[in-house]
């Protein structure tokens, strides 16, 4: 199908433009280039007590929650689903962890383990609704999105829970504000989670199973794939990621705010996944693309702050980016562009490239 487009320089044009991570990387590069001229201070880095500081490090640090959520969301979207509840699960996890540390005798490790378990339980609920009751993912996860915040508020007793400031909880503070090898711990956490996930999905069969189920669940079942288990797995995994994000979020400020923690993060995560080139319809996915997407989103925000845009107004340009990405990925717009390109080249050989082209994009 792509044969006519191959150029002589070895790397085909289609390979380049269809590698899903290339567009967000391109956008990120453009944004950084713009900053290089307009905001030189953006690239200033300094060492303080052996730790790296600067806008770039800050971007990586602040994007860690987005990256973690995007990794989980990628797998869910790859199965053709979506998880709207991650923001609420994030709030529940943070609240459980903070409450356990503030109001019980439990140590940091136990509190962290219990709260992650709670998150995975929430994910299992989502997964069961989708697989056993066959409820549409948007609706199934909407339930927990609506009630999850109520649950978090109820656990916290409708108030902000602070993690006690003493030696016993220094380890928890380290999760959010510590440094390792000169880099912020949240960044390292997010990157290691992303790396482990990447190797697990690409080096074992699970990635293939997810793409197969997302491509066609019925056909996968016919070939002997337990599609329910695969779907259950991705929802539990997404909730696990939301749990990790919740811990990072709580550790940043050493407190859990059930009302404001993680509001709209599910939308940011979905957005990062889409920018990264994974289609909402499921099938092929690109973890690298999603991660770059999440970092791009944070870079955009940090850049806007650097230009003095109020943080409350920042959603306006964000909306613009969402729209542009949607338009670029719209089949209609793509066909239109392709037609124009063809018209200029006057190459009849590509005229019969089928609509399947757009659905068989190369995943990175």
């Amino acid at each position: 199908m792509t044969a006519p487009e191959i150029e002589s320089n070895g790397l085909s044009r289609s390979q380049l433009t269809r590698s899903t991570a290339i567009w967000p990387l391109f956008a990120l590069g453009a944004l950084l280039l713009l900053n290089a001229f307009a905001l030189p201070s953006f690239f200033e880095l300094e060492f303080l007590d052996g730790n790296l500081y600067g806008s770039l490090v800050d971007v990586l640090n602040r994007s860690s929650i987005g990256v973690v959520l995007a990794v989980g969301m990628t797998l869910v979207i790859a199965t053709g689903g979506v998880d709207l509840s991650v923001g609420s699960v994030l709030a529940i996890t943070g609240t459980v962890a903070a409450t356990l540390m503030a109001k019980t005798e439990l140590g940091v490790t136990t509190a962290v383990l219990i709260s992650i378990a709670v998150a995975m339980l929430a994910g299992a609920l989502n997964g069961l609704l989708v697989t056993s009751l066959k409820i549409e993912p948007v609706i199934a996860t909407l339930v927990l999105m609506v009630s999850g915040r109520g649950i978090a508020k109820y656990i916290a007793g409708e108030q902000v829970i602070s993690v006690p400031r003493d030696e016993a909880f220094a380890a928890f503070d380290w999760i959010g504000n510590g440094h390792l090898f000169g880099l912020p711990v949240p960044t390292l956490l997010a990157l290691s989670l992303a790396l482990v996930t990447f190797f697990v999905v690409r080096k074992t069969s699970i990635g293939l199973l997810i793409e197969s189920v997302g491509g066609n669940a019925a056909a996968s079942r016919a070939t002997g794939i337990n599609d329910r288990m695969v779907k259950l797995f991705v929802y539990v995994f997404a909730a696990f990621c939301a749990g990790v994000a919740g811990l990072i979020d709580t550790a940043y400020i050493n407190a859990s705010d059930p009302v404001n923690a993680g509001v709209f993060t599910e939308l940011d995560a979905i957005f990062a996944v889409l920018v990264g080139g994974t289609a909402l319809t499921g099938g092929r996915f690109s973890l690298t693309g999603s991660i770059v997407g999440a970092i791009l989103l944070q870079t955009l925000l940090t850049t806007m702050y650097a230009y003095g845009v109020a943080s409350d107004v920042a959603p306006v340009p964000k909306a613009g980016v969402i729209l542009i990405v949607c338009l670029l990925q719209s089949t209609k717009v793509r066909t239109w562009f392709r037609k124009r390109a063809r018209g200029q080249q006057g190459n009849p050989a590509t005229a019969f490239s089928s609509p399947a082209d757009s659905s068989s994009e190369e995943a990175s």
Partner: protein
Amino acid sequence: MNQRWSKLVSTASTASVLLLLWIVAGLAFDNFWSPFVVADLFSENAFLGISAIGMTLVILSGGIDLSVGSVIGFTTIFVATLITDHSVSPWLAWLTALLIGTGFGAMMGFLIHVFELPAFLVTLAGLFFARGMAFFVKPESVQIRSETYEWLSSCAVPTGGGAELELTTLILLSVFAIALVTLNLTRFGRNIFAIGGSQSSAQLMGLPVGRTKVLVYAISGFCSALAGITMTLYMDSGNPINATALELDAIAIVVIGGTLLSGGVGGVTGTMLGFLIYGTIYQITYFASLSSSLATIAIGALLLTFIMLQRLIVAPAEAE
């Protein structure tokens, strides 16, 4: 199982939940069965009801509108700023706000239809855009000082027993009546059901799919703007943070009311019942001095129950 019958079952089950809540609450708390409680129920949440009715049309057509909360927030601060800071006449401010809301909805509908973009994403962009614009107008709460507002707050229809229906309630009831007539007695209403049932069939039958879809989102935008104005009438102020995440409550109400999220089945009568259930649950937590977070949890549980009910009764499991 035909559609008419299943629709009846779902409306009846919503109505019986409402009835059950009222009976239990009335037995448990003194003074729950009073016209004051009913009047409160309507006036306190009127803005939510109005946006839920707009949302019903969108969901019936097979779409979704996530931007309603942000449009409400934008409208409240926009109207408040125009009236207080720029001494614009309230009527003109309302007209402008309604035009903006409708235009905004139409724009989203246009993008969704013409470029075949997922409604979920376009209205998500709308959510961010409208909320950002709300803060752009003014980042803090603005009190409305206007004679018109004072005069309007005194307008009310007595219902006997000392209780009265406030203007906000009257707006909600009129929107409901108009939506009911439009959906059931006009060609436009029938087109919405047809498109929600199957867009390709509707297209093949020669129905004006594009026009209807754009109009549906425009109406939802109009309803959100109207809901925002209603909110300023109720609160006498505007705040860019108003109605954050209200779209979730609106969607929950629509689903509890028996409208299928996949489109084509449901109606505004169910939404009204869902709205009353929502208000009643909050009234109960208030009467029992429970925390409002329990009400949120209860609504989530109810949402789950109704979705499961729809799954089991209304939409028999599709052949795999």
